[in-house]
């Protein structure tokens, strides 16, 4: 398994947000993490990436225990993510945002002092520009990221995450707020990323999108795993229907 969480729990104050959660992701798999609002999906991402420490349980990345690893080292191990509320650096340009993530591949003091600002000749800058061009975003390379429309920012965030050359990519609601054409373009882009061998873990509410992209689904409700099945079988599961629609008796 490329990513595995075992018996993970997390409370905020008296509220148990994640309760004894376990699941694994195979290499090259596309897993969806779904559940109603407040089910704890983003918290799972935050625990995997080390935004907060888990109260108990363990996280494994490629068989090595990363539970206690400081968050900034996790991207260097090949674990990158996007954010539900886009977190580009608003005062950096688009291309600089992409270049920030490259650092994870070659960290250290010498890399920090490497010039990256001189024209197109610089290797890292050229690479970031090529990645933006591939995503059809080259025209925005020199714009301040904070000034761009929402849909563009979302696409830039994906390019940025990929600049770290992740083996596992966590996507937090990638299709939220996108129109049907943008959602289709996103689907194509993620298919291409998956074909390169990147494992995808997706939190998403758009079930049609999930059904097309992902092979397997883990369903959360109140921090517990209530179902785990192939994405085609999701509608047949009574517990999932109950979590989303309320119990059958009431309905």
């Amino acid at each position, binding site marked *: 398994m490329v990513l595995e969480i075992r018996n993970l729990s997390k409370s905020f104050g008296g509220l148990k947000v994640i309760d004894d959660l376990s699941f694994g992701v195979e290499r090259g798999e596309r897993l969806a993490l779904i559940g109603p609002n407040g089910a704890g999906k983003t918290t799972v991402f935050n625990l995997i990436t080390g935004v907060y420490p888990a109260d108990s349980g363990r996280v494994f990345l490629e068989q090595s225990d990363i539970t206690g690893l400081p968050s900034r080292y996790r991207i260097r191990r090949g674990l990158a993510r996007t954010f539900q509320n886009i977190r580009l650096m608003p005062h950096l340009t688009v291309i600089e945002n992409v270049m920030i993530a490259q650092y994870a591949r070659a960290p250290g003091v010498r890399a920090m*002092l490497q010039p990256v600002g001189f024209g197109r000749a610089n290797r890292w800058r050229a690479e970031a520009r090529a990645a933006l061009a591939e995503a059809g975003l080259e025209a925005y390379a020199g714009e301040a990221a904070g000034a761009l429309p929402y849909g563009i920012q979302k696409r830039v965030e994906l390019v940025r995450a990929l600049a770290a050359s992740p083996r596992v990519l966590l996507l937090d609601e990638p299709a939220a707020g996108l129109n049907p054409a943008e959602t289709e373009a996103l689907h194509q882009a993620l298919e291409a990323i998956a074909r390169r061998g990147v494992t995808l873990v997706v939190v998403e509410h758009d079930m049609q999108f999930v059904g097309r992209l992902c092979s397997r689904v883990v369903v959360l409700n109140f921090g517990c795993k209530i179902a785990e099945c192939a994405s085609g079988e999701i509608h047949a599961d009574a517990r999932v229907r109950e979590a989303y629609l309320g119990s059958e008796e009431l309905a």
Partner: protein
Amino acid sequence: MSGYLESVLVLLAINVILAYAAFLPMVAGQLNLGVAAFVAIGAYSAGYLSNSFAVHPVPAALAATAAAGIIGWLVAFPILRTRGIYLALATFALNQLVQGTILNLNVVGGASGYPIPAHIGFPVVAAFSLAVIVLVFLAFRTRFGISVTAVSDDERAADLMGLSVRGLQSAAFTAGAALAGLAGALYAHHFNYIEAQNYGVLFSIYIVLYVLLGGTQTVYGPLLGAAVFTLLPELLRGSAAWRYVIFACLIIAIMSLRPQGVILKRSWFSK
């Protein structure tokens, strides 16, 4: 060159270094109200070296730069544990601490000031100032330059992108402290007399104003801010007593028209 013009240019050269001393931590998201403390450390340690050990003023200035940098690095650890307004207050307190200590140090004259006979002339001051400008411009063309901005924009996301937030913040703070020390050493050896009373928090605030006026988004901002703060009061000399009032009004006007500073990213210069 007339003596007056030369002394204005020396002040300009020193103020440019001071502006970058405040700019570096500010780009990393830290408001340092203790810049004057590091200026004082640089001025007094350079003066002490040249007075007591007959060190040539240029190596003394370089040693003073290192001393201010090392002290900056040491205090960065406790001080950078604080955030926002508390960080500003901690650096404010540091300024009081250093100033108070020097006032009580009789070996460097205490409250009666400290004469430093060894002289550094205008060309050397100007050369140091140019070197600082070039170094800062180069630094902001490296990964460090985009990384410190990333840290001040969004610490959490910067951390998850693999950047060492604390490392970058303390590096920026340390480099700023070292530059402040250099500026102090150059001032001490050019004007040949220093007084601890001058290195108070008000001086620190002036330096921060250079940067805020010019703008923190590009490396050109502090340059412009330092130039305006040095030259404008001189140009207003015609109106003698009222010049500081006019000057203050102009500052308020610029601040209200351009709260982000005069030079913004992707405006006239940078691309």
